[in-house]
């Protein structure tokens, strides 16, 4: 089994607005990126499972070839810095991606 920390150069999260944040996965190797893209390995069902969300809450998943990257957009539960918020910059919401184990073709 493989984890993203084995093949990704960057796994991070950050606000994209006061009401949304994005998870970014950037691969080291173009071949790994292509495998992910061709097999649609990061989809709403996966994010729903990792984050305990409804699939319909996943706002967008975008594959961006120039950076060998996948971007996943999610709504915040509470807007940035409002009472009850937990992460004003949205910078520590990526960890569940690092727990994910998957199989890569040999």
């Amino acid at each position, binding site marked *: 089994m493989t984890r993203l920390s084995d093949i990704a150069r960057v796994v991070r999260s950050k606000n994209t607005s006061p009401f949304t944040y994005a998870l970014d996965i950037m691969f080291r190797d173009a071949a790994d990126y292509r495998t992910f893209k061709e097999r649609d390995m990061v989809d709403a069902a996966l994010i729903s499972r990792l*984050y305990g969300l409804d699939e319909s809450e996943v706002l967008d998943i*975008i594959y961006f070839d120039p950076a060998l990257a996948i*971007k996943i957009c999610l709504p915040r539960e509470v807007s940035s810095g409002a009472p009850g918020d937990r992460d004003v910059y949205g910078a520590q919401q990526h960890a569940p991606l690092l727990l994910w184990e998957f199989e890569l073709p040999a």
Partner: protein
Amino acid sequence: MRNLPEKQPVTISVLPFEVNSARPPCAPRRVADSVARFAILSPTAILGYGFPEDSFARGLACNPDLIAVDAGSTDPGPYYLGSGKSFTDARAVRRDLALLLQAAVGRGIPLVIGSAGGAGAGPHLEWTVAIVRELARELRLAFRLGIVRADVPAATVLEGLRNGRLSALSGAPPLDADTVAASGHIVAQMGVEPIQEALSLGCDVVVAGRAYDPAVFAALPMMRGFDPGLALHLGKILECAAIAASPGSGSDCALGILEADRFILQPLSGERVFTPTSVAAHTLYEKSNPCVLPGPGGDLDLRAVRFDALGEGCVAVSGSRFTPSPRYCLKLEGARRVGYRSVAIAGVRDPVMIEGIESILQQVRERVRALLPPGESDQGLCFHVYGRDAVMGEREPLRRQPAHELGIVIDAVAASVAAADTLCSLTRSTLLHFGYPGRIATAGNLAFPFSPSDLRAGEVYEFCIYHLLEADPLGLFPVEVHEVRA
């Protein structure tokens, strides 16, 4: 879900993290004289974050046509916009500005500062202008100062609401007249046009309120006829200075050189290089869609972008396109005060208490509710339980994993300072002595790191306006011109 088409092949010719430390820092690039070029020096990611003087000197040695810096962000949260305070430190901003003003005014290089004071509303702008004036006096600098305001009158927002020219951005709550009235400061992110207006009035130094980050970099080269797509994309990268380099830094300088059909990024420190991947990675940063980036008056379309390594740590970028939108829209931001906060921080080490923490906190909340003065509620009470789920809440997959130690922040927000103090104090004392089932440590449930245990954290705000307004590019941004004399 979207899978965007590949418009044309993309070259990534350099792999990440190749750092050639033997390279001489910033050998100025030789470009044929017939090629129109425009060099922009970005000293730091945020005015007040600092930058090394030797990097800045190398940037100046490259004869920049513009020094520009972004001073703001909504990242630090709604407090700064709502309260009118800066999230940067006055002495740090002063240090950066002293170097920038001396270099720019001394050499006749235009200096443009955007999103002054962090949030870019009236008080933030005045705070920055006061520092600029103070420095001009001390350093005996004379220049023409342009001040561009970005405050939006409540009446303008209400009018937009009435005539349907206002629309909410993703996730923003519905807007009504009460919310508009409650927003202390409302700002619009200006595009390049108001900054161009100030520059065309002969301003040497422009201090702008809230601005679309790339606009402070793109305004002048666009006036000189450079391609808006390239100028805005370069601005998008330079607004974070050396963050797009490898290794990235928010407090180091970077140089961008616009040419007719591409731009070049050049590092200004021997410690870092730009690589196609570091620049491509930055294009993703803080954006919901890296392929099409909406801004004032149109979209930056990056679907056909290319990043090519040039050697010596430089990267060339081409293919960025600007597509004007049929309606000119500006992004509005507003925050309103929702109360006052008091907090208490405590640790829990008792395994029996840790085991039952969820039910204990629920019962404490119920007890506190019964103890509060009439008319006050526990609605603004929040427990941040570090070691369980303080960072991710319901989205934390490991929230049931046993911990040996928990950190609890009692976060009490209420309508007045007194009510927040009461809510915090009653919660702290109730939790400290709560007799939970199975308790054998009967002396006290909390380890406080401080005395006093309860701290006042001041006003609490929330973003309530994050909307697009169809508007004139110039109408909302009055330009003032002042002669600053030595």
